[in-house]
């Protein structure tokens, strides 16, 4: 998807909605890792956790919080 005007909701399916392919999703995970220092474990990089912007954000935030010192 290369159209910046494409109206994407937080609950829209990215992979199963045919918006981005699995290579692009992995690139997002790599970006998150290098930008925020957050690594999504390989086993969690699945449709349940990553298929919408909402779920993806929740998963990343969860990982960031777990990295915070208590």
């Amino acid at each position, binding site marked *: *998807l*290369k*159209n910046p005007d*494409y*109206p994407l909701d937080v609950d*829209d*399916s990215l*992979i*199963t*909605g*045919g*918006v*981005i*392919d*699995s*290579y692009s*999703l*992995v*690139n997002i*995970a*790599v970006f998150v*890792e*290098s930008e925020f220092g957050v690594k999504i474990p*390989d*086993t969690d*990089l*699945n*449709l349940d956790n*990553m298929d919408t912007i909402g779920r993806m954000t929740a998963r990343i935030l969860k990982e960031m919080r777990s990295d915070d010192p208590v």
Partner: protein
Amino acid sequence: MILFDADHYCSLAEPLQQRARKNPDAPAVALLHNSRSARILSAGELDQAARRYASRLKLSGVGAGEMVAVGLPHGEDLLTAFWGIIYAGAVPSIFAYPGPLMQRHAYAGRLHDFARECAARALITTPEAAATMPDGSGNSCLLIHRPLPGEEDNRTEPYETSCPDRETPTYIQFTSGTTGRRKGAILSHRAVLEFVQSTITVLDSRSEDVMVSWMPFSHDFGLFGGMVFPVCAGHLTVLISPHHWLRRPIIMLEAIHDYRGTFCLNTNSALLHMVGCAMDSDLADLNLRSLRTMIIGAEPVLLPSLERFTEKFTASGLERRMLAPAYGMAENTLTVSIFDHERDTLADWVDSQALTTHGRAMPAQPGDPGAIVYVNCGQATPETRITIRDDSGECLPEREVGEIFFTSLSMFSGYQGRAKTRGPASEGWHATGDLGYMVGANLFVCGRKTDLIIVGGRNIHPEDLEAVAPGISGLDPANTVAFGVMDEDIGTESVIMVCGLSPLPAPAERFSLEKALRQLIYQTFEVTLGDVRFVPRKWIERTSNGKLARHRNREKYLRELGRSPAPSQLPLQKKDD
């Protein structure tokens, strides 16, 4: 070089059986999953596992010569099932298994349809997929899953080696596509054994060589290149789960480092995925100096992709001489031609004007106006001959563009379930549908006669994509066209759909139609569209007999974006338009 005489064997099972007899404890396969640790199987263990599997298949009712469809995830079970079926003298065909980033709910149904379409005697899958398999009414196929008959009480029938006719099928390699468009290339024992012998010669294969592969067994590149060849030739092969590779592609380079890999396989787009995902920290200790040949194929190979990959990993010891672009297809078991850096020149710059106007690849200098570059796919493998022919079947001289034909000893015997005329063309030559030219003995592939789209090595028929349009209210099925556009950023084709509608709907409605189309295309084919365009109906280009002229629609689409067609998509062939 290893000594391997294809004529010495009567079945594909024999090279592994012989290896297990001579050197049972040497590691044959290392299955890498989620870390740098691996499950290693020796030749003896793989042989024993295949024998047990074969005898249990016999208990299940599968006989020699019968076809067995296999839908299992990448791993030991799939490896054992493949060799077990080969040992049983039956004929496997592997159907791709979905990864964690793919939808699974539709898998059982698709696998079931596949088994029925290829008239399989048995279908081997996971207990989970078997549990959701549609009702088998009208289907006499045996459904087999773990535990296999005799597995729980360790009951076996004694395994007996057999010596089938070498010309009988040993594997059926299906291309992707929907029912009716999917073609199953039948490969005989002889063809695959000849492929092994020819690959040993081409790669100057030595006993200490190590293959590293992430390609799936459902693809001929992964099955024959990554697994069957090294197992039969006596190498260790390090096999990486394709889904794990997708998530962390650097694992392939780490495996080359850890196992001192000498051979590996990649597609053009895979090279760029590795470049994009490798972090500096991954490269710190990486050593690729053991590598001799990285075979790159399954889709057009682009010079900028090779350059970006080499640049990224030079400090780790990667050299351009290690990269070997290749041309191949299931109809020749795998390889038709392969580049050899000691013999061949990697790039050929030609004048695009002479190419499109006269179908002639006239040499040009890099930087000349209109100069474009093609990557050398090297010379024909031993026992393969290549010719370039015009539409009347006449052989063309050097640098003239025409259809690529080949004939060889590792050639397929025909397509399953189709009349013989649809198999290898007359006089034993196969018309590939690809366009190319020769320079000396070197093959350059420069286009395709058909509208087939190839994404990362996977074949997609535009007709299939267009056929979903009636499922979306608001689209005009007669004016919906699909085509592939080479995207150098990702190193493969991007799938584009253009929808002709008059009057053109308002933007909000266009987006909701696009959403519906993207979703339906993904759910039906697992294809992600690169772009969807809405245009007035009269925009759509047609042939003189009213059919969609896909390549002309592609040129128009690119023109409107201010882009030129990629060298692999120039209009080279006069068509009915």
